[in-house]
């Protein structure tokens, strides 16, 4: 998405603050995979992977990777005491059964109603749906981590998504390089503006109306 590692780390660090002790969390590929680096080491979180792991720990040291132990993105991981392995049907049974407290996903577009498009650009890129649809529909809280605008500089937060949807009314929080935006009953709530941007910058680069909560951080 053309964002430097510093910006991506800042976004991941902000997302990490949403994770509370005891949560079961699934991280999508890309920026979401950076989130664990910003958790306090004593935070009691269970990371879940669609291929069939619950209780993933930090990335292994160079040379310590196990070819038989990776996350759904194919990256080597470790496990913590209390972890378990299971098949992919069970991994998704957990997701559909409502056992995931949070998922942090990438996004192509998010609408002001919380619709998410993140799986296909018709005529261009058709990677397939993967597990994103089930995560977006069924996790208790869905956070989208994405660049605020696309590579043409156009807003990705819109009144209505233009791309095929992954899931409707699923997104709870959007964290971008410019802002933190909550999807509320009343519409999009601008909660935080990232340095060096101003509220005006964010509004200009957003394709939907942004509300500001009274007493909220701008």
């Amino acid at each position, binding site marked *: 998405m053309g964002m430097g590692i510093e910006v991506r780390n800042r976004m991941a660090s902000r997302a990490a603050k949403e994770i509370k002790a005891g949560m079961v969390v699934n991280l999508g590929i890309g920026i979401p995979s950076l989130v664990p680096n910003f958790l306090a080491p004593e*935070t009691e979180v269970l990371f879940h992977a669609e291929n069939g792991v619950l209780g993933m720990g930090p990335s292994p040291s160079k040379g310590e990777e196990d070819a038989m132990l990776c996350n759904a993105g194919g990256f080597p991981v470790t496990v913590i005491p209390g972890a378990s392995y299971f098949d992919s049907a069970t991994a998704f049974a957990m997701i559909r059964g409502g056992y995931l407290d949070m998922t942090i996903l990438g996004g192509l577009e998010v609408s002001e109603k919380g619709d998410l498009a993140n799986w296909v650009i018709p005529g261009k890129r058709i990677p397939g749906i993967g597990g994103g649809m089930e995560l977006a529909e069924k996790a208790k809280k869905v956070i989208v981590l994405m660049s605020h605008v696309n590579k043409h500089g156009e807003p990705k937060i819109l009144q209505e998504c233009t791309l095929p949807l992954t899931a409707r009314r699923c997104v709870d929080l959007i964290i971008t390089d410019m802002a933190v935006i909550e999807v509320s009953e009343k519409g999009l709530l601008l909660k935080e503006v990232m340095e060096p941007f101003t509220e005006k910058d964010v509004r200009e680069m957003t394709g939907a109306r942004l509300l500001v909560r009274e007493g909220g951080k701008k």
Partner: protein
Amino acid sequence: MEMQSKVTTLENALSFINDGCVLMFGGFGGVGNPPTLIKGILQKGTKDLTLIGNDAGFPEIGIGKIVSAERVSKLITTHIGSNPIAGKLMVEGKMEVEFCPQGILAERIRAGGAGLGGVLSDIGMGSMIEVGKQKVEMGGKTYLIESALQADVAIVHAKKADYFGNLIYDKSARNTNPLVATAGRVTIVEAEEIVAPGMLDPESIITPGIYVDMIVESEGVNWKWAWE
């Protein structure tokens, strides 16, 4: 990282099992029914239960005790042949019974835990089993729609649990327990032994702890009577 323990007292666990609740239980022919929880339910006096599980146990063992004590208003099960009191209560109209083929009950419970609406089955076409069920045609075949089952509370017996609720079972006492463990909005495990996370081999864990809400220590089982 230290995992928060889900181990609790029998009293606290029982506070989630109340009159009128839908209670799903693990076990098959008495074996694998959680005896300590069942004893607790009996002592508490909980009634008007909708019970979901493989069978009605035996009159004086396992889940059968709850049936015999007339605490059940509806039973969704596969057979009650081993508990004549269940048959009597059914005939007298004191307990409603819904019969389901055994493997289909297992699938309906699994579907409930797995966030599916149900499964398509060809078992029991043309028999009493199809009464009241929707049918679909697919690929030139007709299937019954067997709906998913969930419960307010699921009670389970395990050989070992770690604090997080990862479970392993003991031989054929596994039976329906891993399925039932997934399908309760609250899942309570009675374990023979409780260990620290990391003490169970992650490859051999049958029920990942994500499904478990509470763990109580078992006072021990005695299922031998079923065949003596």
